[in-house]
């Protein structure tokens, strides 16, 4: 979903000299989340789905570090397991548009002609459509909320919508690079010598474009997680009782007055993960700009 937002954040923070520390710090933050997602048993011991209606809305104790929610489920475990959902969807929502965009952009840049025009027009259309509102509409209409391959319930529509919209930035980037490279003399000579377009793409375009692409992908993961959380909060994302940070906030918002940590904790998780990803993206951007 890299749109103007992503383009704004990739304006360099600072003078590009802080690339490595940013990547390291961001990497550590994100790394923690990834480890937690892969090995939830390491940090939590309760079943996130197990309800205990006798101990609803309990205060934090050593047994329940963040207390229990309205249905008596251990909040900390739900937070931990929520990491898996968000990271899984986030990564997919970032990778799929990247692949689609790269292919379309490459083809469009290489062959030009009517394909280029069509792709350009589609880009214009999708850009002017209020993309995010489109999410809601489509998600409301699509009956595709069932689990699909390795995706949990409610995740497929989100991935599809991201794919439909997010490929643009990658397409533009790759297309630009391809067109720039296509006109270089030695590439034309190579083409005359029988080098296929795919080889051109890999040998000449990718090395230059890969830095920027990685930055976009990283930021997209963060934005996808944010979108998923928001949609789940609204009731259009993952269905209950799947633990997801946005859904958890929605479930507990009625109890915000007393058990405020039920709402604050998942929000902090979203923000911290997002900022960590942004740091990585920004750091890579700095490093790329320097070379």
């Amino acid at each position, binding site marked *: 979903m890299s749109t103007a*937002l992503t383009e704004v954040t990739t304006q360099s923070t600072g003078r590009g000299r802080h690339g490595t520390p940013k990547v390291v710090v961001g990497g550590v933050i994100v790394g923690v989340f990834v480890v937690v997602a892969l090995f939830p048993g390491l940090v939590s011991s309760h079943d996130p789905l197990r309800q205990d209606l006798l101990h609803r809305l309990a205060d934090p104790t050593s047994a329940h570090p963040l207390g229990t929610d309205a249905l008596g489920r251990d909040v900390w475990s739900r937070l931990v397991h929520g990491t898996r959902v968000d990271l899984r969807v986030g990564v997919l929502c970032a990778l799929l548009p990247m692949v689609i965009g790269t292919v379309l952009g490459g083809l469009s840049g290489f062959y030009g002609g009517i394909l280029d025009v069509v792709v350009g027009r589609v880009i*214009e259309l999708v850009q002017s459509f209020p993309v995010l509102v489109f999410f809601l*509409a489509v998600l*409301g209409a*699509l009956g595709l909320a069932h689990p699909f391959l390795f995706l949990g319930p409610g995740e497929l529509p989100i991935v599809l919508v991201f794919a439909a919209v997010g490929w643009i930035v990658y397409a533009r980037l790759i297309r630009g690079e391809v067109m720039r490279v296509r006109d270089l003399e030695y590439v034309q000579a190579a083409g005359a010598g029988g080098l296929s377009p795919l080889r051109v793409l890999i040998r000449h375009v990718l090395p230059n474009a890969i830095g920027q692409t990685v930055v976009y992908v990283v930021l997209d993961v963060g934005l996808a997680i944010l979108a998923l959380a928001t949609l789940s909060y609204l009731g259009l994302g993952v269905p209950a009782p799947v633990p997801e940070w946005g859904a958890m906030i929605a479930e507990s918002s009625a109890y*915000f007055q007393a058990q405020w940590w039920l*709402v604050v904790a998942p929000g902090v998780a979203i923000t911290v993960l997002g900022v960590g990803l942004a740091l990585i993206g920004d750091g890579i951007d700095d490093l790329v700009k320097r070379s």
Partner: protein
Amino acid sequence: MSSSRGRFAFVGSRLLQCVPLLLAVTLLVFLISKVTPGNPARTILGPKATADQVAALSHQLGYDRGPVVQYLRFLARLGHGDLGASARTGQPVTGVIRDNLAPTVWLVAATALVTIAVAVPLAWAAATHRDGWLDHLLRTSSVVALFLPTFWLGLILIRFVALPTGWFPVAGFGHGVAGHLRSVVLPAVTLALGLAPVVARSLRTSMIDVLESEYVVAARSVGVRGARLFRWYVVRNALSPAISLLAVQIGFLLFGVVVLEVTFDIPGLGSELVTAAVGKDLLVTQGITLVFAVTVVVVNLLADVLQIALDPRVRTS
């Protein structure tokens, strides 16, 4: 001078370009309803309709004909202002839109005003004091603001500002102008907190471009400074890119409005959209999406027109 004619021609062509765009938008919206499995007529009428009623509606809406005919009929109905009726309440969609329009408009306007009021001075201060503490703060806060979930921020503001002070309502739209104002302040501020840093950062960049441009240096070299420099050399030239920056934000603004209407329980188009979407009320979802889509197209068009009015260099392509 031929520039005036050139400019009118440009505006005209932009308007014309909008038509296929709007058509494509309607097509997309139309396709939404086509994607759902099952019989659309049944979905519209709900599970309690009889088979005969479903068949009758199907025929009336042209669902038993080919897709092209259906689309044309859809467009025709659009032209007559018929967007169908809600599957849940039976109320015509246009009526639903009309009933819920006001709070959304208020919220959008309030948010836009607050965002601009905050972002412009912030960007100016950051641009004129580069690498100062404000500049750094702006850069870091724009990243954080990006990833701070809007609805979460809204909830926090409700809990820690509205509830303790009692100044702002925690739900509803209020009565009269004062009531409306009080109810949109907090959500507008929430959304502005998320948008302003990002907007300010873009504005800052375009302001720096202008401040460091050669024509500003040249003007200063003959003694132009102060308010005169600001008004005629800086603002005039920074306004154009600023407008396109702001116009781009409209999509995110609308999304934020939708989310916050739900968070703050304001009865506007946004919360209606979510309710309809959750309740699988296709036609209402479709109708409201169309409204938002058209809004975005119109806003972008207005931004383009404004830019043309401001920048004498723009001509027909």
